[in-house]
């Protein structure tokens, strides 16, 4: 997790605005679709869940794995990207 992807940097670099859930690092087409089906269509809805869990990366990763079937790497990448976004913009 020391090196970050371009997607991560893009997301963390600016307010998320209306970005779709797939703009989150670690969330691709397939995971994005699964999340959309559960009502998590925008990145900010996922952020809402992240905040509900009090920014607890561990809990959030667990939730993401449960909800979308993400693996540990994907879940970790997504929670790190949200953590950093919160540090910058919240």
């Amino acid at each position, binding site marked *: 997790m020391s090196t970050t992807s371009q997607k991560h940097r893009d997301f963390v670099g600016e307010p998320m605005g209306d970005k779709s859930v797939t703009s989150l690092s670690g969330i691709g087409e397939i995971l994005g679709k699964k999340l959309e089906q559960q009502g998590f269509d925008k990145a900010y809805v996922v952020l809402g*869940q992240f*905040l*509900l*869990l*009090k920014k607890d990366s561990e*809990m959030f990763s*667990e*939730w993401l794995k*449960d909800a979308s079937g993400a693996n540990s790497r994907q879940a970790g990448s997504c929670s790190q990207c949200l953590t950093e976004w919160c540090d910058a913009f919240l």
Partner: protein
Amino acid sequence: MSLREKSDEELSKLLSEYGIKHGPIVDSTRKLYEKKLEKAMEDAPVEVPSPDKTFYREEAEEVTYITYHHSPVRQEVYSDGVKRRGNAEPDEEEEPVQYTEPPVQISKRTANHSAAPGIKEPKRESGCSVWKGVRLLLLLAVLAAALYYAYCRVVNNEEDPFGIQ
């Protein structure tokens, strides 16, 4: 122990009891917290320590306390009155208070049993026999105390009639 049936508030309370930091319990977070709580409960299956537990501990302490220092008092009442006076007197002053308590505590105990009969059944039996013995001891102790008081008074009156008003 089905967490699924508990209300959000109950769940939140349980989480706090197990020392799990948590946010609001809503539809999207509930399942996660149920899981976490379940794990915590498996690791430490001691459910909410009930108040009667401390009650029993107190009772046990009381019992040993009383039986422990009554026999010596009874045996040596007349042997060294002046020396014993210092530590024997406060004890005797406490005892009448305790003596009036047993009936109350017994009724309390039976009430507890009807509420949670499983664990405490054996304790009650031993407690009853112990209480019988304790009552006997208390009776004897009170008698001894009365005699001791009378004795002290007589001795003090002989030595220093103005010491006691």
